[in-house]
Each structure stands twice: as structure tokens, then as C-alpha cells.
């Protein structure tokens, strides 16, 4: 679908250094990296805003390196929305259709339909200046997808929003992707977004792509210390959640994890390694989650030891070196791990 080969671009402040990527048709692809990693240049180069200093960009097998943005059928949504302030919401959404000389009644019908899909129908006659961040971003997404692009580029689309809106819009993005099947490239610095949405993830740093893989591969087996530090989260799983009263029960690869966060359907689960207790015998506590397994790996991080306990899925547990030694733990020891439902974060 999209292939970029050895693309480099130097803009002084930001740069892209020999980037090579293959993105499949219909994929939800995440580009993850810290600020200044060159993520935005990468997608702006895919959109055709910049011509690469070297390297080539292919779209459906055709070399589009020198094709202007207007002929690529690639839409873009920026973090700060970039809604045209002098146009009403309806004219903002219909902007691309007007450029393509789509008839007036057809434009209106398509704008109505997409506005309905994104829940912004009641805003069509207003100007962007008075809208909330969440509303603006929905409109920016509507404007980008109404032209039925081959590829949708999202540049940190959720970063400027408050956490509630972020969560709602994240679900919305997943829904739109499922509905339209449009190949989507989503740039973010949030591992949560990456993990929750991505079919595959590319991690960038200093203008280079340093790892590409499924979320599991990238989060469980980071190929460099940078990624391990940047991602910084262990015990991250995907599962299916069922709500029972005020708690959720999430099935993750054969085990069942209880959380006090109420959310149903496909969710991501994370538990901080510091929140997990380890014991050699089964103990009775008020904590809702208790599993037994075997220590498979131990990492000495100075004062802290990180032990991987395989209970069907691998959990990373952090404990002080002192406890580790006092308890006479070692790889191969059978142990119990315990953590509270309130320490189980769902998103």
C-alpha cells in the first residue's frame, strides 16, 4: 500500500534520516516517538508537503515521490485541528469536495452523512472559533475522511484534548477505521494510544525508525534501551472485558484479571510492576487478583529487582533487592503474585 524507501529530509530543526517503512492496505499504523523525533516530517513527506532530499515514496506500487499533495488522495489531520476559521463547519467539511468539483447537492449529502457519523450535525452552521477542542477535532477528522482518501494521516490527533475527550475520540477513531477500512497512519507520543489502536507500531527517535512491529512485540521485546525507557510500561495486555456491577473482569490469554475501572468490550490492561506483591506461598488478602507461576527471568536494576513471573502471561514484578534476597528468590522458583483491582488500569 504505502512503501517508503530510504527517505531522508533535513529541515534544520527536524529531520528524517533514511526511513524505510511498508504499510499494508487497511492497516492502522502507529508512529510512536518523543517530541522532535521526526514523526510529523515523516507523515508530511508521505502527504507530499515536503519532497524528500533522497529516497522514494510509493503508493499502491506507483512512485509518488514527485506527485503534488493534491493528486495523492492522502488526507491529513493535525493536532491543532487547522480548521479554516473564516468558513462555517459545513464549508470546512465540504472543502475537499468543492476542490474536486463535486456537485452542490452531493456535497451537502456527503457532509451531512459524515457529520452524522461523527456526531457534529448540530454544529454545521457555526464557525470553528467557538467550538471545544473535541468538537474541532471531530470536524477536522470529518473534513479529512469525507473525500474518501486512500490514506488517512493523523498527527497527534488526541494530544491537545482533555483525558475524557481523548478516551471518547480514541474509541471513535477505532470505530471509523473499522467502518471505512481506510489505511491510517497515526502519529503519537502516547504508548496508551499506540497500544490501544495500533495494528503495528513504528518507534522513531532522532529522525530514525528504530523498531517496527506489533504492539506486543514493541512493548514486550523492545529492541533497544531507548524504547524500553521511552515505553516505560510493563504488564500491558489486551483482553475482553465484561462488567459485573462496579467491577470489570478481563479475559487475557486464559487468565482473568479483575479491575475496579468499569469498561466493557475490547480493552487494554496495565498494572504497574510496583503494585504487584510477590509471595512464596498462597496467601489470603483483600486483593482481587491472585495468580501462581514461575519466575522465568530476573533483572537486577541496582536497588530494585525486576522479576518476570509467568502465570500464563508474563508479569513483571518490581521488588527491592533486599526482599528479593531475603525471600531467596531465583529463576525457577514457584511464587504467587497478588495485586488489587484498583491497581489494574483499563483503557
Amino acid at each position, binding site marked *: 500500500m504505502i512503501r517508503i524507501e530510504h527517505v531522508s529530509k533535513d529541515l534544520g530543526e527536524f529531520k528524517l534520516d533514511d526511513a524505510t517503512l511498508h504499510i499494508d492496505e487497511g492497516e492502522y499504523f502507529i508512529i510512536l516517538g518523543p517530541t522532535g523525533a521526526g514523526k510529523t516530517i515523516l507523515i*508530511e513527506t508521505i*502527504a*507530499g*508537503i515536503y519532497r524528500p532530499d533522497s529516497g522514494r515514496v510509493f503508493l499502491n506500487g506507483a512512485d509518488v515521490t514527485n506527485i*503534488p*499533495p*493534491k493528486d*495523492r488522495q*492522502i*488526507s*491529513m489531520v*493535525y493536532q*491543532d485541528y*487547522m480548521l*479554516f*476559521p*473564516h468558513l462555517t463547519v459545513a464549508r470546512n467539511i465540504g*472543502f*475537499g469536495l468543492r*476542490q*474536486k468539483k463535486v456537485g452542490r447537492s452531493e456535497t451537502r449529502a456527503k457532509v451531512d452523512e459524515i457529520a452524522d457519523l461523527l456526531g457534529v450535525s448540530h454544529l454545521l452552521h457555526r464557525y470553528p472559533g467557538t467550538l471545544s477542542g473535541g468538537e474541532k477535532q471531530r470536524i477536522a477528522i470529518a*473534513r*479529512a475522511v469525507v*473525500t474518501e482518501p486512500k490514506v488517512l*494521516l493523523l498527527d497527534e490527533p488526541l494530544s491537545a484534548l482533555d483525558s475524557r475527550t481523548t478516551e471518547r475520540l480514541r474509541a471513535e477513531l477505532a470505530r471509523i477505521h473499522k467502518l471505512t477500512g481506510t489505511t491510517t497512519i497515526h502519529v503519537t507520543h502516547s504508548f496508551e494510544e499506540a497500544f490501544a489502536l495500533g495494528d503495528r507500531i513504528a518507534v522513531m527517535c532522532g529522525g530514525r525508525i528504530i523498531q517496527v512491529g506489533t504492539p506486543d512485540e514493541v512493548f514486550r521485546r523492545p529492541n533497544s534501551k531507548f524504547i524500553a525507557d521511552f515505553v516505560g510500561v510493563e504488564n500491558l495486555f489486551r483482553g475482553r472485558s465484561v462488567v459485573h456491577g462496579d467491577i470489570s473482569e478481563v479475559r487475557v490469554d486464559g487468565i482473568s484479571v479483575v479491575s475496579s475501572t468499569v469498561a466493557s468490550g475490547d480493552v487494554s490492561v496495565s498494572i504497574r510492576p510496583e503494585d504487584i506483591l510477590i509471595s512464596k506461598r498462597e496467601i489470603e488478602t483483600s486483593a482481587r487478583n491472585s495468580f501462581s507461576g514461575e519466575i522465568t527471568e530476573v533483572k537486577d536494576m541496582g536497588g530494585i529487582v525486576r522479576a518476570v513471573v509467568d502465570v500464563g502471561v508474563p508479569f513483571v514484578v518490581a521488588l527491592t533487592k533486599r526482599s528479593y534476597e531475603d525471600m531467596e528468590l531465583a529463576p525457577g522458583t514457584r511464587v504467587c503474585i497478588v495485586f488489587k483491582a484498583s491497581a489494574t488500569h483499563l483503557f
Partner: protein
Amino acid sequence: MLSSKFGILTVSIALLLTIFILSLIACILTHTSPHILLTSIASQEIGFAIKLSLLTSAISTLMCIAVSIPASYSLARYNFFGKTLLSTILDLPLALPPLVAGVGLLLLFGTTSFGAWLSDFGLKFVFTPLGIVIAQFAVNISFMLRIMRSTFEGISPRYENVAQTLGCTPMQAFLQTTLPMSKNGLMAGGIITWSKGIGEFGAALMVAGATRMKTETLPISLYLNMSCGDLDLAMAAAVILIIISFVSLYIFERRGGVTRLY
């Protein structure tokens, strides 16, 4: 707040300055009577000066707008070799005395083969109303460039990026996003350029001369009538110039948004 001597001192100076400016205007307005003023304004000579001033300043303002939009856009959006030098040279008319600019224009159009060539096409600038237009343009273009450049720099290029991905050429993207979003800057710049054009004297005097009923704009009329002692006509021209200044300053302030004039 105003208890310190220093505070009182600074406010007093601001007040004195205000009184100074008000007394200048008051002197002009009280030097004549409404009756004489109206008769003078109705005179053929002042009527001609008003018309010529409005016409020349309107044309030179349109020229400034037409040239400054692409030129300032290039400075706001692109990096190219020699940009700093170019930008400094384009700012030069801001510091150059208008008389000097006028002498330069006179030499360019009056003594070079380029001037002669233009003259062959009927574009005669020396001692003609066309000279007034070019003088106003030369003196004011830097102002317009400054205002438009800061206006364009204040608008994220990402609006145009989005428009391009939605099917616009770079020029269509500019015309449909950045340009309409620059409306306030354009209005403010246009008003200040127009008002400065109406008041332009030095450069116009050098290129177009001061010929009664031929190149006689309002400031030229003020100058000619003061020289020959016809104070009534001189005051009429002065009063009209004051009114134009007030109106344009008011509109400029209302449009706001343009703070980086210098």
C-alpha cells in the same frame, strides 16, 4: 498607584504631550471660520486637489497591495539564498527621507534609458500625476510589506498543507486559506498606506513637481497656498488632511491585530 513623585512626573509628561498635539490641531481648526472653510473647500482648486489626492493614493495603495502580497509571502514562507540582505533592502524606504527617494525616482525615470523606454510607451512619470503615484508607491511599499509579512507569519502554514491534501494547488491553497485569513492585516495595511499616500509630499514634489491644477495634491496645495499667502485655501487643505488622518487612524485601531509596524 500614582502616589510616587516618579509616577506623577511620567503622567504629567504624557499629559503635556497630549496638550501639545491637541493645540497643533486646535490652531489649524480655529485659524479659519466654518463659512470660509466651506467656501474654500468648494473652490475649484481644492476640489481638484481632493480628487487628485484620492485618485493617486487609491491607485498607489492598490499597487502596494498587489505587489506586497506575493513579495511578503515569499519572505514569510520560504528560505532562500540572500533572504536577509533582500529583506534589509526592502526595508530601506522606511528609513530613507522621502525627498531622497524622490530624487532617485526623478533620476531613474528622467535620465536613464529605462525611463526613456517607458516614456515611449506613454508612461511619463516626470512632472505628471503618474509621478505622484509612483512616488507614493516607492515610499509606502515597505510599510505594506512589513504589515503583510507579519500577518502571513502569524498564520500557520499548516492551513495551506491541509488545503493541499484536500485537492488544492499551492496557489489555490493560499487564495482559499491564508489570504482570506489575512483580511485584517490587509485592511489595516491598506488603510495606513492609503493615508500615508494622501499625505505624501517630499518624494512627489521631486518627481511630479508642484504645478497648480496639474500635480496639485492636498499637501502640495497646502504648500503652494502657504507660499503665496492664501491662508484660507491652505487651511482648507490642512483641515481635510486632518480629517483623513483621524478616520484612517480610527479604522486602523479598530482593525487592530497589527502590532509589529517597525
